[in-house]
């Protein structure tokens, strides 16, 4: 997917005319979105998948706390996101080398992308622990992901409306993308990103607590 996107950015007549920083911003956003989708898939499988395969009960009857169980599952999310991040580096370099703020893009992808991606993983995990099947938790989490991405699909006009701004203010996904925009394209300083950083960290904390709470008494039959 990254190869196809990078190739498109370089070879497509219209996309290749984009500013170098714009291309890096788009790729960073794509990596974050792809990471969130992967996290949702893994999170949705975390409990419901184990339950469907019959392997959840042996975990629940072992002396493992719900936090440890969630942390173990989160390790899988972190590994997958880490791999995704590492894989994206050569692509970012390929489309952004020689342009501005490539290093910032790589750093902010880690700083903002990680909590956003893990948050979606935790959310899917929370739903997975309580829902009846992988499919239910997966679809519900994907709908939430699509909903959070919807302001971006609405276009700049609607995003600048009051509702659009309000959604942006509480939407971790647009928080990350707006930061990429501000840092990579506009070269804004980190201090200006603090409110958005607080937003993505809050998203991570809330979803982690939800996952831990659900994992305390997961549906196991």
């Amino acid at each position, binding site marked *: 997917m990254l190869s196809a996107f990078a190739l498109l950015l370089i070879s497509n007549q219209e996309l290749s005319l984009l500013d170098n920083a714009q291309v890096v911003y788009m790729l960073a956003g794509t990596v974050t979105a792809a990471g969130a989708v992967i996290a949702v898939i893994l999170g949705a499988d975390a409990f419901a998948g184990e339950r469907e*395969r*019959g*392997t*959840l*009960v*042996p975990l*629940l*009857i*072992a*002396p*493992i*706390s719900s936090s440890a169980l969630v942390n173990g599952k989160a390790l899988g999310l972190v590994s997958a996101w880490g791999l995704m991040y590492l894989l994206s580096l050569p692509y970012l370099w390929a489309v952004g080398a020689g342009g501005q703020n490539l290093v910032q893009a790589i750093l902010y992808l880690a700083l903002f992308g990680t909590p956003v991606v893990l948050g979606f993983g935790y959310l899917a995990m929370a739903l997975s622990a309580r829902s009846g099947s992988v499919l239910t938790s997966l679809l519900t989490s994907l709908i939430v992901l699509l909903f959070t991405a919807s302001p971006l699909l609405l276009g700049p006009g609607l995003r600048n409306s009051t509702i659009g701004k309000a959604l942006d203010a509480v939407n971790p996904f647009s928080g990350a993308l707006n930061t990429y925009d501000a840092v990579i394209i506009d070269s804004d300083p980190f201090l200006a990103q603090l409110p958005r950083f607080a937003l993505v960290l809050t998203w991570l904390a809330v979803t982690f607590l939800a996952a831990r709470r659900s994992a305390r*008494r997961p549906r*196991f039959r």
Partner: protein
Amino acid sequence: MLVNANHLKLTLDGRSILQDVSVHIERGEIYGLLGPNGAGKSTTIAVLLGLYEPDAGEVRLFDQARGHPVELRGRIGVMPERAGFYEWMNASDYLAWYASFYGGLQQPVADLLHLVGLGDAGGRPIGQFSRGMQQRLALARALVDGPELLILDEPTNGLDPRGRREIHDLLLRLAAERNVGILLCTHLLDDVERLCSRIGIIDGGRTRLEASLQELAAVHSAGRRFRLRLERPPADPASLPAGVTLTNEGQGWWQCVIAPDNSRPLPILWEDLLVGHDWEIAEIHATGGGLEALYLQMTTGSESELKEEAVLARPPRLPAKSEGPCCRTSAGSVGCWRSAPCSRPSPCC
């Protein structure tokens, strides 16, 4: 006391699953938890393990309130009904991995596998195991940390007779030598009779009976007990077929005991009473006689067996006018048949 659970109640998704369940297990005791499908056995186990919080009632494990289920689970070995292995792992690696939750293996994996009869299968992927081998491995997993309490849900499912015997012997050894308390959840009454010192029968989310098998055996050793309702008192109650004794009479019900050494089939006996001794039997209730009969007596979800019992108990020749339906059992009875249409309320209908 290892398990002291009293009057547990649990409602799930608006359905009352447990209404009044009590389980008591001492160290070194093998406790048979019996009940029909859906009676609440597995849910009771889940409550004991802290997977469900009961709406009412009290659970004490190892003489402690179950405040920290994670710590207590470290002292319990559980063999769930569905083993739930990662089938791509081999048995040795799986046990070593699972033991890591308990802080490591107490004994070498090979010894553990040998203990359950899987001595040479440690290197094979679990996916290649037969059902019986998976049962053995599940037992090995339950024993991974030398538990003080073992909870086994249908442990001998899928095992051949030799395998069953080996597992029986192992459980008896664990209880006797290591003083392990064992909660055995099974449908196999043979297993219960061979292994258990005490039983609890659950039906409809309620504990119907908790007693030691020794006590029950003493009660039933005198023979099979029946209650007969007669249309009119017998002309000569003292004249009875051999091996049949009347023990009590009241409100039209005559209680009799069939001696254990009586080899005559029940239908022949009833026919003898009906035809040979002119007893006009309206209903027959079996009220005891072995664990199976007791189980049937205590559980209401086994109508087919009850009817079978009723049919077996039915005399071969009855007056045509008296053919009637097999009736639903009343509490405390095993089954009955009617020789006359139900024309008035009775405990049977």
